[in-house]
């Protein structure tokens, strides 16, 4: 079952935070992106991921589509990407201690924006309610299913 994550943080507008945001943008391709890519590739749980700044530096979003249970893998991502999350979360108010699993869990849960519509595959959100809509061209096949099929295809 695939779930959407739309982590949306309002960026503080003080000069220090905006300078940190600028630093993040400038270093993203060279220093941040490879680390995220390595962790997500190894996880075999995340279909797509991107980080977006929208408005006039008003919001930063971490958007992914991931497999598995909401509560099962939060701790893996916190642990694998602690410095990255620390950098991104520091741009917003109410920054959690990313070394603290409980704080990270609470902050991530509250910062996730529900998608419009209703899920069609039985998916539930982090509150156990019917999740918002997420289109899947391949009937919500999981990353491991797709990788396995691609490997079999390549072997033939």
């Amino acid at each position, binding site marked *: 079952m695939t779930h959407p994550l739309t982590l949306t943080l309002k960026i503080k507008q003080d000069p220090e935070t905006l300078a940190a945001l600028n630093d993040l943008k400038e270093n993203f391709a060279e220093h941040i992106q490879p680390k995220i890519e390595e962790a997500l590739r190894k996880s*075999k749980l995340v279909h797509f991921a991107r980080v977006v700044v929208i408005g006039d530096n008003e919001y930063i979003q971490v958007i992914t589509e991931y497999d598995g249970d909401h509560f*099962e893998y939060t*701790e893996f991502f916190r642990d694998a990407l602690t410095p990255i999350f620390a950098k991104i979360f520091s741009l917003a108010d109410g920054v959690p201690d990313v*070394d603290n699993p*409980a704080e990270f869990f*609470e902050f991530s849960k509250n910062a996730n924006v529900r998608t419009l519509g209703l899920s069609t595959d039985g998916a539930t959100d982090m*509150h156990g*309610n019917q999740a918002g809509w997420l289109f899947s061209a391949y009937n919500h096949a999981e990353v491991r299913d797709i990788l396995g099929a691609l490997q079999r295809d390549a072997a033939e």
Partner: protein
Amino acid sequence: MKPDPKNVQSLFIARYRHKFRVVLLFRIDDPATAQGFLQRWAANVNGGLSPAGSYAADVEAQLDPVCHFAFNWPGISLLLKERAATAQGLDPDEVGTNLEQFFTEEDHAPNSNSVVASLDMKGMNAPENWWTAGADQSAFHIAMLCYFADAAQKFQGLGKIRADAEASGLEEWQFPDFDDKALSGEVPAGGILHFGFRDGISKVDIDWEETGTPGKSDFRELLLGYPSSDYRISPVDPGPWNDFVRDGTYLNLAWLYQDVAAFNRFLRDHRNVTAPLSGQADPEEWLAAKMMGRWRDGSALALHPERMPEPWDPSNNFGYRSDPEGERTPLHSHIRVCNPRDQGLTHVNDRRFPKGPPRLIRRGFSYGPPLEGTEDDGKDRGLVGLFACARINEQFYSVVRWIQKTDFSDHFDTIRRGRKRQDMMFGFRGKRQAEATTYIPAGSAGAAPLELPLKDFIRYKGIAVFFAPSVKSLKYLSGS
């Protein structure tokens, strides 16, 4: 800092010889009088590795009753407030993320929508079918775990406790269908549980001195208050909450119904198809063993793949590394799912559990009359499982999820729909997209595995999460 076993309630680190076991659930109406009750009964709670009445103590000694205590979050909150613990930095209203949300938050209680969805508690496993009077955890605050040597001692002991509880304003949440009006049962003869398997063989050997000895488990699997980089146990920071929870453990209670007739029918109905594969073993015994990972006498399939040894082998020293395909112990056998030992995990789980798969300290007891044969008698029977650990979501709930969906190891990718399958003994077979069949390798090259349609042999009748404080914190909560 290392734990002092004397400060840990003995129930979790020793085994008692008492045959009769009862879990009394009480609701606190007046915290002040409740503390009076606790002072009288908690004063004698055992701590340490060899309490009186345990196998580690003098086996000839007379068995006196023993009791232990655990509390859910509303219960702890009431007692801390009565204690005016805010002055010590323990304000329950400000606990925030000092403790795991799966303990403190109603939104993440076992019967909450979020946890029910996460654990796939659907169909007959759904909370509306739990307990006997709805699933509201506010119905109780205290779990008093009582151990008695014999029926007469139990009768007397329960009478005394109940009289004092009533006088102390504690309201007992009773279970009318049990003779003792409480979750109660006994250690069955020979340790044989309802499905006919000997229990109590696999034990968690706690590494108290952090030696890292293979086969031993870090004490942080059980105890709160010692967070490390490998065990990010809440609270992760020093302070009063860490001091309060140190040497305590979460006690996850799972009331499980076992459908013995359905299990026996399953074995009987597939006797013929199993016979060509079972070699010298009886086909039904062979199938049961493949589903459990142990022969019914408790001997491990990993050590005795062909037949039940004579005499039985209690050895627990085995792994699965040399059996990646599950030819001896099937990948979906119960003991292999609940404790994969040295079986490789997925990268994600390797990182989550750097010291090995999550462990649970199992206590509990069987309840209800035994049943032989394939016709159900309509009587309730099963297991009251008590699973202790330091992290509810990372340990207890992870194992519950693995039972429902075996996707925790790369080995499952080697078989058809391996990650969509379930523990062969246990699982909600109606789970969406579940591959609810056995997967038992046939043993000879090229032969098709045995894939038989599984039934719901076990179902949840209730889950509750408690915290069993250290001996010191128990006294503090008691107002001492």
